[in-house]
């Protein structure tokens, strides 16, 4: 352990081991092989006790202990024994907990009376919910109910929601804001490998010879994981780094080869890379023959993409492309990661699948130092997916497989026909469309803020305000969405309830209750169980459907539900999770300590009787039928799916000459529901801005800091300009900010975005819209223009100041927790 690890300065008055606001990634601990421990800690007072937990402000999943004094959180400390972070914490982890103590937490339920939200007792609010719900169920049937949840809850809460919505109500309208962040990750894994779940482990970063980051600015979105990569880059035998990003991000500036394609052209670029690798023969023919099928579709679809053709479409120079292909094609081991630059851009699933294909044709998967990460944005998005409240079926089961349906019904002790499995689960965007056309009349929104995070905001807000739609919002704060609700339920958040989370490398953590929630706030699990009791949901023997009353009870039912599936928790207990923290599923009697990697024997989860979904046409999203799939049963071989490039839904023209991309800044998460309430994080990035190139600024007569009107075919915002080294022709706006940032003028990036999404994963195109910019009249000296610190603009040629990362990657634009 290095010096930094011992520098914990915690005193009676508190303190911090490091300033993570200005030095985001902390001091280096260079390594190859096991990652050294460095414990980060920050307190504001001497804790009386430490409670085991996990950070929930990105998908890395860092183990931490929460310091408590009285009924207050006073600090956090990274867990040295944790397999994910080895003691480290990022800026959001070190500061985000302060939001728990915000003065504007919701403490009592609210109901709308004469157009205003008024406080009522919990019982009265739940009675109103039950009455409306029962009446709609009677008059319009189960399809009148929708549940829009989050990537922020605990596993036990999703599991309860699944039981209530699917077995209690019997509706297919259940989705999470994970649709906006990791739907593509899930579908890409399913299309190639048969089921969801990361093949590899974060430890693969410690061993690999090359790293390929596609649309993933890890330096900003997953700061602790980036610290791990930085430690490799500065250690012996550093891996080579290839980054694909239209912006010169922090990660891109460290790359051996940085490819900056035009927004919307990922699939063309990846086809170009794969074509070179195939033509040069840098492929593992034995692996392709024994462990994959349909390689020829990849040859066919990549064939037209010569380096020259690729350059014409993507603007990436042929020589650059060849340099990248050589690293990716010849490195003996390779870790690839994709995030929102792929998932929220055009042809998302098709592109993400090409990264899987790279590993399949090179045979670099399931081996130490070689894997592909289809990353998550949110801390518990993996749990949303596991529990089937994100648009697939529970425990990675297949809703079209009668045996899988029967297994599920058995665990819950209900008739199989109770479960609505005749149609694919409704995706989030379709849910709002159904609400618009009057088929959904009851919408329960849990821990997310669609009134800021969804595309084409004015339409979404109109739907939420409609008299025909009864909206229940569970949240910790009166978000933009809660303000439009009919009933608002105050929710307990992280630190105030117990439950499990699973990160992007399948590591399960237990987060224990450290303090009591404020006022009458309750966990979402308690609220859902209360609802189920009041609605009288029963199993087939007339017993209550939801048999558990506490998180551990839910977890134990989940262990049964997941048994025999890839995400097998059957060998896990709360007791075991309290040890040296972090256990990776599958964890069974045969593998009691969890499993570091999947597919080590080259056998994938694609067998017709085991796979999660039968797959889709990557161009149209058309479903492959069970009969078609069974006729060509892959029986454990991975499926290589080539894909054709399709034209974008809109193009820049004279009226809208620039392409807009949106994303995250290092110090915020989602719609800032929590991070804006942590004073240091908010001060680091208090207001929105638009990033423009110097060339475009000159062309449109815009000065640094001047207010700019950015307009698309759908809406407009007015924000100050930041001039950086972003590619000319491209503009960037962070998506975190709602319209309340400064009053009068709209500032939410999603007023501009397209109401369009990927054909397969249905994830919206937040990173592609044609816009115009113009100086917005008088330059007013608003707080916003002054408040964009120069250090935060470091996406371009300027050197980042003191390591402060700016950021490109968008995670999920969503709500609280």
């Amino acid at each position, binding site marked *: 352990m290095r010096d930094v690890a011992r520098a914990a300065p915690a005193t009676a008055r508190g303190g911090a081991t490091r300033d993570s606001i200005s030095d985001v990634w902390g001091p280096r601990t260079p390594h190859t092989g096991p990652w050294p421990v460095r414990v980060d800690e920050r307190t504001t007072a001497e804790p009386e006790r430490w409670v085991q937990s996990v950070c929930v402000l990105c998908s890395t999943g860092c183990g931490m202990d929460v310091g408590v004094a009285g009924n207050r959180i006073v600090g956090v400390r990274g867990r040295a024994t944790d397999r994910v972070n080895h003691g480290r914490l990022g800026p959001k982890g070190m500061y985000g907990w302060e939001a728990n103590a915000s003065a504007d937490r919701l403490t009592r339920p609210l109901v709308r009376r004469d157009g205003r939200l008024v406080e009522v007792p919990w019982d009265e609010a739940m009675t109103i919910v039950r009455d409306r719900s029962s009446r709609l169920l009677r008059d319009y049937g189960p399809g009148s109910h929708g549940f829009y949840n989050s990537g922020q809850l605990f596993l036990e809460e999703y599991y309860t929601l699944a039981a209530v919505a699917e077995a209690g109500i019997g509706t297919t309208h259940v989705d999470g804001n994970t649709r906006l962040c990791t739907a593509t990750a899930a579908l890409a894994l399913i299309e190639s490998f048969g089921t969801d779940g990361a093949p590899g482990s974060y430890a693969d970063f410690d061993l690999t010879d090359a790293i390929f980051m596609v649309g993933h600015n890890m330096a900003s979105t997953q700061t602790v994981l980036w610290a791990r990569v930085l430690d490799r880059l500065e250690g012996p035998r550093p891996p080579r780094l290839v980054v694909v990003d239209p912006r010169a991000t922090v990660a891109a500036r460290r790359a051996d080869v940085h490819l900056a394609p035009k927004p919307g052209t990922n699939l063309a670029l990846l086809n170009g890379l794969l074509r070179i690798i195939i033509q040069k023969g840098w492929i593992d023919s034995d692996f392709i023959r024994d462990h994959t099928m349909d390689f020829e579709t990849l040859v066919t679809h990549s064939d*037209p993409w010569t380096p020259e053709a690729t350059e014409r479409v993507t603007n990436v120079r042929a020589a650059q492309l060849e340099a990248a292909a050589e690293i990716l094609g010849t490195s003996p081991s390779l870790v690839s990661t994709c995030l929102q630059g792929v998932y929220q851009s055009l042809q998302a699933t098709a592109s993400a699948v090409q990264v899987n294909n790279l590993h399949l044709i090179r045979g670099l998967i399931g081996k130490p130092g070689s894997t592909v990460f289809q990353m998550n944005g949110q801390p518990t998005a993996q749990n949303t997916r596991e529990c089937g409240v994100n648009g697939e079926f529970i425990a990675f089961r297949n809703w079209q497989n009668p045996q899988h349906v029967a297994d599920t019904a058995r665990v819950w002790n209900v008739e199989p026909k109770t479960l609505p499995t005749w149609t694919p689960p409704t995706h989030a965007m*379709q849910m709002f469309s159904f609400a618009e056309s009057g*088929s959904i009349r009851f919408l329960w929104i849990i821990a997310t803020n669609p009134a800021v995070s969804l595309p084409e905001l004015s339409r979404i807000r109109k739907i939420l305000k409609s008299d025909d739609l009864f909206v229940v919002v569970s949240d910790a704060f009166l978000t933009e969405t809660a303000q439009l609700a009919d009933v608002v339920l105050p929710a307990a958040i992280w630190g105030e309830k117990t439950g499990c989370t699973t990160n992007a490398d399948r590591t399960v953590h237990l987060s224990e209750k450290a303090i009591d929630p404020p006022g009458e706030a309750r966990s979402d699990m308690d609220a859902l169980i209360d609802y189920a009791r009041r609605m009288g949901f029963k199993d087939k023997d007339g017993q209550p459907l939801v048999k558990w009353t506490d998180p551990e009870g839910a977890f134990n039912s989940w262990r049964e539900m997941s048994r025999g599936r890839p995400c097998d928790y059957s060998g896990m207990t709360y007791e075991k999770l309290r040890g040296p923290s972090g256990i990776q599923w599958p964890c069974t009697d045969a593998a009691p300590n969890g499993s570091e990697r999947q597919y080590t024997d080259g056998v994938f989860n694609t067998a017709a009787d085991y796979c999660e979904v039968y797959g889709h046409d990557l*161009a*149209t999203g058309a*479903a492959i039928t069970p009969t078609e799939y069974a006729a060509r049963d892959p029986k454990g071989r991975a499926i290589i799916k080539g894909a054709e490039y399709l*034209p974008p839904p809109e193009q820049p023209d004279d009226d809208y000459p620039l392409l807009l991309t949106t994303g995250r800044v290092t110090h915020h998460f989602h719609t800032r529901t929590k991070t804006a309430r942590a004073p240091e994080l908010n001060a680091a990035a208090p207001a929105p801005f638009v990033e423009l190139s110097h060339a475009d600024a000159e062309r449109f007569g815009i000065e640094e800091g001047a207010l700019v009107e950015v307009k698309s075919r759908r809406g407009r915002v007015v924000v100050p300009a930041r001039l950086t080294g972003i590619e000319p022709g491209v503009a960037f706006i962070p998506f975190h900010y709602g319209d309340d940032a400064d009053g009068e003028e709209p500032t939410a990036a999603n007023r501009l975005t397209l109401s369009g999404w990927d054909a397969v994963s249905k994830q919206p195109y937040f990173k592609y819209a044609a816009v115009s910019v113009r100086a917005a009249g008088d330059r007013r000296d608003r707080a916003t223009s002054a408040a964009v610190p120069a250090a935060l603009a470091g996406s371009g040629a300027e050197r980042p100041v003191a390591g402060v990362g700016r950021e490109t990657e968008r995670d999920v634009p969503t709500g609280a927790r």
Partner: protein
Amino acid sequence: MATRQSPVARPLGAAPSGRVEPRPEGPAGKMANPPAGAKLQIAKYLGLARSTEEQLLNALVLVAERHERNYDVAHGATTLATWSREHLEWLPPLADHYGAVPSEQPEMLRAALLGGTRAGLIGELADLTDLAVLAQQAEMTWEIVRQGAREVRDDALVELASRAHAHSVRQMAWIRTEIDHIAPDALSVPLDVGGQAAISLPKRLDAISSIPDSLWAPATAGLILLIVGALGVLVGRPWLGPSIGPSVVLVAMMPAHPSSRAWNTLVGHAGGLLAGFIAVMLVGAANDPVVLTSGILTWPRVAAAVIAIALTILVGILLRASHPPAAATTLLVALGSVATLDRSLAVVAGVAVVALFGELVRRVRLERVTPAERRAPAGSSMARWLRGSGE
């Protein structure tokens, strides 16, 4: 004479220069030279394939435009449309080799589909079901062409038909997937007449396809009649006659039907006039009483009517100008109501005005621009892609 093909078919020329994206080339294999008999049969099915793809393309674009609010439907239909357009671009070399005998059959099929008020989930469901009929027709036609091509050992045609057939199968799969998604909700939502009407009102002036027939047809039919009548009053001639009525109804209510084309309207009525005079001459009925005014029906008039109708139908078939309202014209002559050159010219003038404005009205109603095309600047590679090579 731009009447042989539906007005929505865009010119299909050579691939434009300067296209950025690499796209699949047309089939490159060797063409065969089968016996003339086989060649003609294949030519018929190539004609059927072309016409089917034109109608499918038109229908896909219509659905994309009509249901722009449902991105799944609008975007999926746009993607499918690019494939149909691709098939039409691949066809010319083979059509030149074999010939392609025009077919009206797909147009008549299309005319029976996609009509009425198609709004909301139920409207989406109905439109998708109709699309499936056309996609099925395309799939079958390519299957038949492929089988024929195999029999005559034509590599190029086998490749074209195989690729087009594979696309047709994917088009069908997409339609089925969308139907599966939408049907449970569409069928469980009670019909809200007011809401449906509100949704079906056009949101933009260029979204004429979303106006329901119940508004469009009466308004346009009335408008055309008003124009004919006003012009007739101005020139002091009886341009407005009973022949005009059914033609106007046809163009307003069934714009996609081949019968309502300008060619059919004009040639149909002219043929009817001519047939009527010939029939009257042949049986010598000219001096018999005018049936409608005298109330007396004579055998020569009956004979003239029989011959006139038969001739009118024959002319319609031979000139591909079938137009049921022409039967009214020919009966007016055969029964004596129109007996002079002067009255005949008035009928022709009225019909010509209907043909002209009717064609305008049906083009406006049928011309399709997908939402994506509306956002693509003219001349861009995107526009070329979406609109085919005729850009």
